[in-house]
């Protein structure tokens, strides 16, 4: 297992390097650089002053030279650089935004599982029934909707029309430490993410149950005279949960990458918001930090899924 992990980690290095090069090149070749977003105040700048600003950030050099300096800074100093917008270390900015994103997406994941697993089990156990077809159809309708559109509909309905929930932010003024108020603010974004994503989890669970219910040990359990409920809950359900547990590892990057559009629509100041604002302000170091963090987590999530699978399923062995 150790050698497997080492090989996987070493194998990820060229992949991460490739991602970093492509990301940096795409950003640097986009129209308008950091000096272009100085706003009206920068309009009076002399060409020399603009050159000085570009020199301060190393932007006077070709993009591949800039990339090399970025990489050198990361490898030899462990630094992801300084934001062009406010000159703060980007790692500080990223970690500042992480908690709210993890909170929102984590709650959404929990809600998704709460919805998806029971429905998946029931649909799998009643394959071909009206409930099975209806749950899949409804799930795919939500899945097919752009999540930002779904979010806007939720706002229109529950924030504007019924006024049950707030339309933006994560807390009311003066109640920043009130847990109930925070949950109240997160209801709509969490529901938007959960509705958009529950169908894939539900379908996984449904397939697992169908596969488990056709296994030999289920036939044995039935032949022992166990009730259908006991067969499902004590035998099929536990085994059918294994693939779902391993899939949780794959959702790790989403916890950090966040639900960009949902954060944007609900004005939640998390990683998604930081990503959008960094794109618009051409803040390359911050964008690189977010991209690389997400890439690392995708690799780590895949690895974690493989390891979890080996732990929970004794039949799996990695050489």
């Amino acid at each position, binding site marked *: 297992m150790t050698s497997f992990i080492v090989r996987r980690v070493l194998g990820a290095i060229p992949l991460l390097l490739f991602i970093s090069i492509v990301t940096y090149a795409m950003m640097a070749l986009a129209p308008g650089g950091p000096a272009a*977003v100085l706003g009206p105040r920068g309009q009076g700048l002399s060409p020399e002053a603009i050159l000085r*600003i570009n020199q301060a950030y190393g932007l006077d050099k070709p993009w591949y030279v800039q990339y090399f300096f970025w990489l050198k800074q990361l490898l030899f100093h462990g630094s992801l650089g300084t934001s062009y917008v406010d000159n703060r270390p980007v790692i500080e900015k990223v970690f500042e935004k992480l908690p709210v994103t993890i909170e929102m997406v984590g709650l959404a994941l929990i809600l998704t599982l709460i919805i998806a697993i029971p429905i998946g089990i029931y649909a799998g156990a009643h394959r071909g029934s009206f409930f099975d077809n209806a749950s899949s159809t409804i799930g795919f309708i939500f899945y097919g909707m752009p999540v930002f559109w779904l979010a806007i509909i939720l706002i229109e309905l529950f924030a504007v029309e019924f006024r049950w929930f*707030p339309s933006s932010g994560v807390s009311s003024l003066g109640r920043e430490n009130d847990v109930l108020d925070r949950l109240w603010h997160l209801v709509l974004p969490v529901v938007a993410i959960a509705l958009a994503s529950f169908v894939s989890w539900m379908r996984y669970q449904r397939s697992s149950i169908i596969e488990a219910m056709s296994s030999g040990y289920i036939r044995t359990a039935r032949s022992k005279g166990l009730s259908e409920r006991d067969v499902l809950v004590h035998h099929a359900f536990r085994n059918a949960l294994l693939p779902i547990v391993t899939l949780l590892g794959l959702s790790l990057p989403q916890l950090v990458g966040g639900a960009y559009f949902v954060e944007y629509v609900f004005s939640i100041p998390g990683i998604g918001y930081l990503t959008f604002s960094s794109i618009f302000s051409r803040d390359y170091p911050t964008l690189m930090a977010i991209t690389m963090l997400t890439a690392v987590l995708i690799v780590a999530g895949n690895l974690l899924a493989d390891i979890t699978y080996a732990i929970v399923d004794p039949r799996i062995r990695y050489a």
Partner: protein
Amino acid sequence: MGSGFAHSLERLRAPALALVAALVLGGCAASAETHRDPNTLVALTRTDGATMNPMYATTVQDGSIYAALLFDGLSYVGADYLPHPRLATSWSHSPDGKHWTVDLRRDIKWSDGVPFTSKDVVFTYNLYLNPKTGFLDFGTIKNVTRVYAEGPYRVHFDIAFPNAVFTLNVLGEDVLPEHVLGKIPPDRQRFSSFGEHPIGTGPYVLKSWQHDSEVVFERNPYAYRPPKIGRIDFRVIFNDQAELEALANGSADLIDDLAHTQYVQLQRIAPNIKLMTFAPLYVDVIELNLAHAGLSDVAVRQAMMYGYDRVAIAHGLYDDKVPVPDSLIVASLKHWYNPNVQKYPYDPDKARALLDAAGWKVGPDGIRSKNGTRLSFELLLNQGSALLTDEMLTFIADMRDVGIDINLRLTDFASLSARTYTGKYDIIADARGGFVDPDLTSIFASDQIPPNGANTTHYKDARVDRDLRLGLVTLDDAKRQAIYDDMQVELMKTIPIMPQVGRFAATAYSPRLYFDPKVSLQSPLGYYNVEDWKFVQ
């Protein structure tokens, strides 16, 4: 089995419903109850800015509002739009206008208790003038050739040529503490922690800053103009509706940048909230790239003005709460505004006649052309502005009506800015203004075409060049007025930039707040008298 499972779901339903009910009711209670420090002014904002360092601030929030709370210049601009002494007590200039002497106040300390002296002023201007600093207002002060002190409370400035806006622009720059920033090399100033931990002479000090969430200022214990309100708390709210709710339910006291839709809605949902509109300092404009074959023809530009129903915009989108300007110098700058310029009432027939006379013939598709050049342009617009988009849709329809084809393209600000400064555009919708002096050298002088300056329309007009040159070096106000009157006549005849409507400027505030801002709080001089604001309940 199925019924058992369904039964399990059934058992979960009651607690689930209870949780949702608790959230809704608890949340509603949360929205109704607020725990407020009565001596804190809660102001709502869309952005908390990027830095407290005035050298590198780029937004109204950090460059104008925070700077007004934390720092002072030697002069400031009052509600009369004229410069008045702030850190200075008086100033005078030599007969040739190339040497200025400024006397300083003697009762001022920085917010860390260190006395303010002429050393700070000399240090600040030398820092600003050093190209390595990358000071964003470098263009404003670049004609200063030498700054030196005479004792602790007098400073001398030598300038390359007489400068009519010296007291307004040069002396208006914020003064920085030498004892804090003097140890940092100019090329490292940008990266210093001063942007997060500022020391100033203004009425407030920065207490705390949670990025993208909250910025709190407290009364400066050494303030020489101590504010009546002890604390100002800027809360970042990105959403129009949430802003209105916070103001209506008493969680907040002030929205200083009210959109017109919010203004209308507040009148309906919260009649107790006070509303104030201001004569705008900014004008929504349409900038034309005169390097383009069609737009280089002045007849086309004049026809575009006649063919555009700007009154319909002011009426339809803003309920007539914004003016339809005759000039780029707004009417509220009474001293400089010239109403006697060429007017452009909506007259599509006159627009068509002008184009016909200039040889622009209507083609089979209804679009005009001449010598192979079609009057077909791309209009670039920053995607973040919904109202400006509505204005532009009307503009496009009006232009089509007179035979000019305009295609709208939304883009982000960085791309828009890059294309503007590289001349890769036809037409751009934007806003111009914020200035209180008519010196528009950087926008219209022919030697300011990028990369040298901000003349992005590539405008070249000998008469305007002459007026700008003379206006800048003429110290006599009456003579300057005549010069800029002439400049406005020429600009409105040649139309490098089409003024549309004045930008809507309004503030909404709690009845417990008493203040008399006179000018929009979102203008560069909005918080000039913040120390006089107070609570009346």
